[in-house]
């Protein structure tokens, strides 16, 4: 059994009171609750404040390019189905630069967990609008506010049949920890969009703002009711639901691919000689011996 300090790593570089601290804490406690040792966990991230998380939590990690965490995680999981793979990414990382991978990861449905630190802003680059920024968010780069409608990642995930779709809130640590535990345990792509106040650059979506709006999904809410889930996933503004919005049993990437379903391909090294059998294909048989010529 691992304990908190096993996951101790570098000092963080986040701003005091940043929502990321609770997400980090929730992640650590969730991993402990899941009974995982640091060497058993594998995080994949892109670039951004959110994507720095792996540096603050001792474990295996692949901290790649801005926007490209999902394909890296998909490839890793395909090669190593034995490892729990968790993506920590930001709203810009995952829905902006990485939007195409988000779209197709939902279709492909690899068995990974995707935790999006959704602060509705580009934090690391100092406060430009992100795909989830509200129209009202005036920034130095968006003097009229962003010129696009805010993106609805959870609704999209439900629409494309993501098997586990949830919303967490950095202001509610125990609940968030719980969601992460469920997400990691779920087979297939588990999306957790975490409302994360950015105390430095997002002055609209603050702790106060959320406090007045977030509510846990009521007892008896049925996450398998797709139509209802699609409704709830779009609820935003006055009231913002927290919890597991949608669940679906669905085939996972690799189920139909023997090289994945057989387990880690790394455990089945091949020899060059194995391909000799294929060469016949390029020989072509003659139907007679030497002709007298």
């Amino acid at each position, binding site marked *: 059994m691992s304990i908190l300090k096993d996951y101790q790593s570098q000092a963080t570089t986040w701003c005091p009171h940043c929502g990321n601290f609770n997400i980090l804490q929730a992640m650590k406690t969730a991993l402990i609750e899941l009974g995982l040792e640091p060497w058993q966990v594998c995080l994949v991230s892109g670039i951004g404040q959110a994507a720095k998380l792996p540096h603050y939590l001792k474990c295996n990690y692949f901290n790649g390019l801005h926007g490209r965490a999902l394909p890296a995680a998909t490839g890793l999981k395909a090669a190593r189905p034995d490892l729990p793979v968790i993506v920590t990414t930001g709203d810009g990382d995952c829905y902006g630069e990485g939007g195409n*991978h988000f779209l197709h990861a939902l279709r492909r449905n690899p068995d990974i967990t995707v935790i999006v630190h959704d602060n509705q802003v580009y934090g690391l680059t100092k406060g430009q609008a992100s795909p989830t920024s509200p129209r009202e968010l005036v920034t130095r780069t968006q003097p009229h506010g962003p010129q696009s409608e805010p993106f609805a990642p959870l609704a999209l995930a439900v629409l494309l049949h993501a098997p586990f779709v949830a919303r967490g809130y950095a202001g509610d640590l125990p609940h968030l920890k719980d969601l992460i535990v469920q997400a990691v345990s779920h087979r297939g792509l588990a999306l957790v969009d975490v409302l994360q106040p950015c105390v430095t650059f997002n002055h609209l979506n603050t702790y106060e703002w959320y406090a007045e709006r977030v509510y846990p999904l009521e007892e008896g809410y049925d996450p398998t009711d797709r139509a209802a889930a699609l409704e709830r996933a779009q609820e935003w503004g006055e009231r913002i639901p927290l919890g597991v919005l949608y669940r679906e049993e669905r085939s996972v990437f690799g189920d139909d691919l023997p090289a994945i379903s057989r387990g880690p391909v790394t455990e089945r090294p091949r020899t060059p000689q194995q391909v000799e059998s294929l060469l016949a294909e390029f020989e072509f048989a003659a139907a007679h011996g030497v002709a007298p010529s």
Partner: protein
Amino acid sequence: MAIDLNLRVSGQAGQGVDTLGTLLAEVLHADGLHLFTHQDYMSRIRGGHNYYQLRIADQPLTAAREKLDLIVALDERGLQEDWPVAGPRPVVLVDGEFEQSEGLKLRVPWARLAEEAGDARYANTAAAGAALAQLGHPLETLLARLEATFARRGPEVVAGNQQAARAGYAFHLEHFSRMLPLHAPVLPPHGQLLLSGVEAIALAALAGGVQFYSGYPMTPTTGILTYLAQHADGQDLVVEQAEDEIAAINMCLGAAYGGARAMTATSGGGFCLMVEGLALAGMTETPIVIALGQRPGPATGLPTRTEQGELWFALHAGHGEFPRLVYAPGDPTEAFELTFLALNQADKYQTPALLLYDQYLADMTATVPRPDFSGLTVDRHLATAEEIGGDYQYARYALTDSGVSPRALPGTPGAVVEVDSDEHDVHGHIIEDAETRKAMVDKRLRKSAGMRQDMLPPLLTGDAEPDLLLLGWGSTKGCLAEAAALLRQSGERVAQLHCPQLWPFPAEAMSAVLQSARRTFVIENNATGQFRGLISRETGICPDELVAKYDGQPFAPQEIVAAVRSRRREKA
């Protein structure tokens, strides 16, 4: 060579030019002849004018040649496209009744014969029979191949095709026996393979133990993706078509981080989208092999034609400075060898390796010796248990003299494998201080020393102290060899230099060779003389002449001979 015939099958896209050409090549190859084939096709699925050209000989061939001896025209209207390269008196086979034949334009009613055999779709098979008759080649092997090819479509289809073949063969013998056939007899079996460039690369990927392949379709690389996809289950590797090239390379890097040997392939436009990932591989020290199949650019350019326009791009693609390996095979055999080597070297130096080829190499097929598997091993160069140790002491980027750090895989008890695209310390933790930065740049670049020791020398063939030195890289290899031979026949002292590895660059060896020659010609399928520029930068010696071709077509040996001769006249 006692036998050296040049046959072209031409017609519209969708008429089965490729299938018929391949069928004839397979039959003749099986019957002990040596083949060199190449194709020319348009970026469309139907119509236009495509061809599949077979050079047939009794000895190994390394290049195509001009001047056709026999044209099998599936689309008579398209014939005018073939005339310019026709020889003095080429035999032409076209569909139609015997009576309409005129001179060497021989008509075989293969459409009708096919109908009689039960299905109009057997027409090309009837044409194949006629072609073999014209070549003075027996029918048996063709019949056998038809059996093999159509077995799964049922005995009827097999029988029908065989009947059509026999009919075409018989018809030709009956009506055109007075014409002396072109001489392509059955020879003693050579037991060799008929292999294309992409097939060789794909086979080497399998032999090289690739465990994860992700790509996005793009000519001339789709063949690799397809071949691997077909063998994914049997050979036990993961093959996935990605949503785009960015995903393809990042999937590969994720898989490689996990320990799978990973590879991808793309053409210039897709490579553009991969270069950020290439730099990531350099920074994270993640091994990967990228096959870059060049075609005429910029942008979409000529999607199905050939060019060598991305040498400099391959050498410097990606932001920042990191070590890389660049190989450029010249023929199917070398394509197999270098792909295999690239996979081992990428793992050895934990850095990206590029395999630079082009459309011409991708599609050319040749009768080549079976690869020798005896010596081949897949060398992963992974960290030993001792090197990894316990208590989370393992450091992915430990500083070493070679610059290569022991590589552990995630999921190792008591160790975490931390990999970072930011500048990092030995543990892979993000850093910002100048000292660590410098140490890590030095560490990564130190790998070049070892890479240089493993470096392949340029291949020099021909006369010592030559009057003429022909320098090239990639798919011009066989063509330069034949051009050199032709020049030699006319009494010149000629040598050929082919450079299979372009980075690290064998500068010393190259300088020596360059200095030994009186007159040096660089022959390249591009407009700006990229290889020539590389030689200048790395050796300080600028080769005398550049023979550049950039119209999407490959060189022919005769063309090079002519160019070399005219250059010398100019200068004389």
